[in-house]
């Protein structure tokens, strides 16, 4: 296992190098000269030259790439172009709010999704199963934007059950008051795809030999489903949830933006709107590294839970 982990860590290097090259290519080559972007509407040559020197974009590409690599290893991506705040400080302060929303969201949607998926997998092929599957397909076909707009309008604006948006100082208030509706929307959006996916995991297990054995030796259906099937189906489900996490950190930007949650996702979308390249570059690199680490963790975890899995 240790040898495997080390080998996988070693294999990170080419992938990470590729991500760095891709980000560099996109931002420094495709992106063109950021000086014109920053100098405002009527740039004069002196300002342009100053900005170019300050950002280091007057250097040849090879030097710029070296600067970028050094930034990554120091964990210092400089300052935001629009607010001047250090990028590292932005991340440190925005991670908490993001996790306040994302952790309850993931836990709730996973538990609800598992329960519903187990139910429809148990009655597979029945009318209930078909109806739930079609409802999931319909639910998935509605844009996340519509869920956010309608839920916010209905529950916050019209009925006043939740604040429309905002963020406080105490953790309890943030979690129970300001994040509540965001979590509800997140769960509503992820439920349909989760049920569909988890149902296939449960179906894979229900058709296994050990289930027939368990039934044959006279175990109750409750015991077969809740102990035998659930424990085996939980493995791919937990892996799947883990793998979702890094993407969600940046991917929950729509929810964070609409509900005024000062998290990483909202920072990404603000950065995209302001062409604030240092922040976008940093997020991309961080999330890519997190994805690779989580992928490895999931594989190792898989091996620890299920001894039949062969790691190559």
């Amino acid at each position, binding site marked *: 296992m240790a040898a495997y982990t080390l080998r996988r860590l070693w294999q990170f290097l080419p992938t990470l190098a590729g991500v760095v090259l891709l980000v560099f290519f996109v931002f420094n080559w495709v992106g063109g000269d950021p000086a014109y972007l920053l100098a405002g509407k009527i740039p004069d040559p002196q300002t342009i030259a100053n900005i170019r020197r300050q950002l280091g974009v007057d250097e040849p590409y090879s030097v710029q790439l070296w600067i970028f690599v050094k930034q990554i290893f120091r964990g210092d991506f400089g300052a935001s172009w629009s607010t001047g705040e250090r990028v590292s400080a932005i991340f440190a302060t925005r991670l908490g709010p993001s996790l306040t929303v994302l952790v309850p969201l993931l836990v709730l949607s996973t538990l609800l999704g598992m329960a519903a998926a187990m139910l429809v997998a148990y009655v597979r092929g029945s009318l209930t199963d078909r109806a739930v599957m079609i409802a999931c397909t*319909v639910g998935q076909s509605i844009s996340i*934007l519509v869920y956010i707009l309608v839920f916010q309008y209905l529950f916050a604006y019209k009925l006043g059950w939740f604040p429309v948006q905002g963020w406080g100082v105490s953790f309890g208030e943030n979690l129970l008051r300001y994040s509540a509706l965001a979590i509800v929307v997140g769960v509503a959006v992820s439920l349909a795809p989760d049920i569909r996916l988890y149902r296939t995991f449960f179906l894979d297990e229900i058709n296994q030999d050990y289930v027939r054995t368990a039934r044959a030796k006279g175990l109750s259906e409750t015991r077969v489903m809740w102990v035998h099937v659930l424990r085996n189906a939980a493995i791919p489900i937990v892996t799947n949830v883990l793998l979702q996490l890094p993407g969600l950190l940046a991917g929950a930007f729509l929810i964070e933006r609409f509900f005024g949650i000062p998290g990483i996702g909202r920072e990404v979308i603000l950065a995209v709107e302001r062409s604030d390249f240092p922040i976008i570059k940093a997020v991309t690199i961080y999330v890519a590294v997190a*994805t690779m680490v989580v992928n490895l963790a999931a594989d190792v975890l898989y091996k620890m839970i299920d001894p039949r899995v062969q790691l190559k």
Partner: protein
Amino acid sequence: MSEQGVWSLAWRRLRADRLGFGSLIVVLAYVALTLAAASGLVARDWEKEAGVSFAPPSFLGPDAAESRQLLQAAERRQPGEDYGIADPLAADLAAIAKELSGGSASAARAPTLPLGADKWGRDVLKKAIKGTETSLFVGLVAAALAAVLGTLFGALAGFRGGRVDDFFNWLYSVFTSIPYLLLVLAIAAVVNQKGTFTVILILGLTGWTGIFRLVRAEYMKHKVREYVLAADAIGASNFRRMFVHILPNVSHVVLVQLSLHVVLFIKSEVILTFLGFGVGVDTVSWGSMLAEAASELLLGKWWQLAAATLAMAVLVTAFSLFTDAMRDALDPRLK
């Protein structure tokens, strides 16, 4: 003995699947609508301000109270009369005010429209049709681009193996270690240029990875099969074996993936356009309709939101159900 090809068998299975076949008809209806809109047969004058501002849908009836209020306000307002002197422009101003309030001055403006009107009085139904054209076009072309790239890369990697395989696997791991929407947004931020073709390029160039993985696996499986070895023995070139012999045998995988990606890209385009990185401002798409609807909803004008949501939900549901049915029809072992 009647020999039936895999495609005609699949077609027969699809015909037998009522839900899947119904979905296919809905999808084809959307494609027909898109073609009609693109050729200018329907919804050509979607930019025309046909109704009063926020004209409600016909089934609700005209918003009597509101339009009367606006009209009265326009008539009451007489600038200059406070000063006791005649305003030389009074008549013109009154006419303009009436025009702006959408009152009697513009008799051509309808008080209601089939699905209501937006802020400028444009027909929401026509906008939804034009939006369908944009969104479906982007989804189809971007998915086709991603499928071509994914198939080409997958074929090369799976068939050639070795260094070529290593290279494409590396490219794959690079692209998949950045979450899809983040990658798309980052590129959109850098390109900073709105337009239908920009969106298609961004989605297509980043979305090939899933297709690549499956096609590569299929090519690895097929390249050692006897029919490919036989083709090699009679001197078929690598290119011929890859694209003439193997490709038809893996095309069902590509087709199902293509269909899945259309749905994915339609949803992505809506989000990109909503955020202001999608199609241009002179184009209407479901994303731009939702962006307008976000502020309209607070005023209680829900019809544009409903129209865009419904148009999108019906197409995406039908497309997803059709994809499922197609997969079952092409590969009955999966069922």
